[in-house]
């Protein structure tokens, strides 16, 4: 059994949603070896569709894939303006959940990105750069077995 299975992620994201008033919070995690190390949305709250459960993320594709690959946080304050409405289908979670402003941060374990935390609103501009920075400062601590920033030591 892996470490994060013991940690109650669902409770944690519910709390995050509550604290910041997000419309949607989701966590994508690298699955175990038996599941071919796939990157999947494992926990979500505020979702309006079950589609996220079926999606296997590809590294470098979509928002979470991009964060997963680059290891850097990603903020979009206006979905249509930044991603364009024509190519939105390439960002299934954003599209399906109708997120208009959102941010994603990498989750590190032993200096490697092992997951992505996505938070967002269904209205444009609600997650501003300041709000996202504020959120990251508060969340900077440990999230279960993961850290939200790269650790230099270890």
């Amino acid at each position: 059994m892996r470490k994060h299975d013991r940690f109650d992620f669902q409770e944690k994201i519910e709390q995050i949603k509550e604290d910041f008033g997000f419309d949607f919070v989701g966590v994508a995690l690298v699955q175990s070896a038996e599941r071919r190390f796939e990157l999947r949305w494992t926990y979500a709250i505020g979702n309006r569709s079950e589609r996220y459960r079926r999606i296997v993320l590809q590294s470098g594709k979509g928002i979470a894939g991009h964060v997963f690959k680059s290891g850097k946080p990603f903020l979009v304050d206006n979905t249509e303006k930044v991603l364009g409405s024509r190519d939105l289908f390439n960002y299934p979670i954003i599209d399906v959940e109708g997120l208009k402003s959102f941010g994603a941060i990498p989750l590190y374990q032993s200096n490697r990105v092992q997951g992505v935390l996505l938070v967002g609103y269904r209205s444009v501009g609600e997650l501003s750069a300041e709000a996202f920075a504020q959120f990251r400062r508060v969340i900077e601590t440990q999230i279960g077995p993961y850290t939200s920033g790269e650790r230099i030591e270890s």
Partner: protein
Amino acid sequence: MIRVSDAQLNDLLLKLFENSAEAIFFFDRHGKVIALNHAAELILDAEVLDRMAAGDKEAICLTCKGYTSEQEMQTCMSCYMKNPQQDISSFQVYLDTKGKGVIPYTASYQTIDVENGIRVFMLRDLTKQFKTQEMLNQKMMMKNVIKAQEDERKRISRELHDGVAQEMLSSLVELRVLKYMNVDQEVLQKVQQTEGTLMRLLDDIRHLSVELRPAALDDLGLEAAFRTHFKWIEKNYGLVVHFTSELESKRFEGEVETVVYRICQEAVFNALKYADVDEVNVRLFEENEALQLHVADQGAGFDLNIVQPKGTGLGLYGMRERAELAEGQLTIASAPGKGTRIQLEIPLRKGGALVEDHNRG
């Protein structure tokens, strides 16, 4: 040979001259117009007609924009008029006509009375034939472009699948061997992480290969290719495709399979992009000696008559183009809020169901 009296023949020739859609001019030895018919009058400007009537030898040059030689599309070099010894039975000439601009004619210029040097100049409008030719060329071109694209995709797809992915797999196997060697925990963990990265990379390459052109389409046929594709759609976009096939793994001509696959792919993508649905129904079956494909969703739908399409509007056009390539019929039924239903029907050549040309090219 059928014999008619000279009077009858005269009558027929006169009628031909008066009623023919071809423009007919009679020129004398000096290049003066001695007669022209109604069809000829219709294509000429009043000014040209006046000058012809006045006996101006150069009048025809006002309207003639040159003929097609081996060197040039429109030229006046060694003009057909200036070369009385030569009979040219058929050539192409461009005339500046009244109301229609410069259009091509097929022309003949021949001596009909050697003694008096009378020659006849006949013109037949080529615009229609040109349009037909152009359409044909365009279709052939489209067909070739699509074929070239498919072939190139097939080549790269195979290269990725048989070359790059294979190499990747063997290095993955080599890496796994490390796990059974005497290495310490830290190294083991690192190896495991690298294994994960490599596996995801391998998956990416395989996706890329299948996305370009599924090998399954050539090797196993439509059903297998569709099942793989729909599984991929579900994994990538979370859209569920309910696929029913009543073909029992039957194979069709390579071109037909490609057309059906690409059209279905586009139709499902459209549903994914615009219909705002979580599921799509696809049915593949044979009926009335034709291969039938139905793609239906219960989503947003759209107004078929709308001028400004959501998206580029090229998708539906491309689907129709592809359908035409296989002499298929594409029907699109949709209305706002009523979902969308796309039906493709491709007639099958009798007895030609099993064709072994899937790996050509």
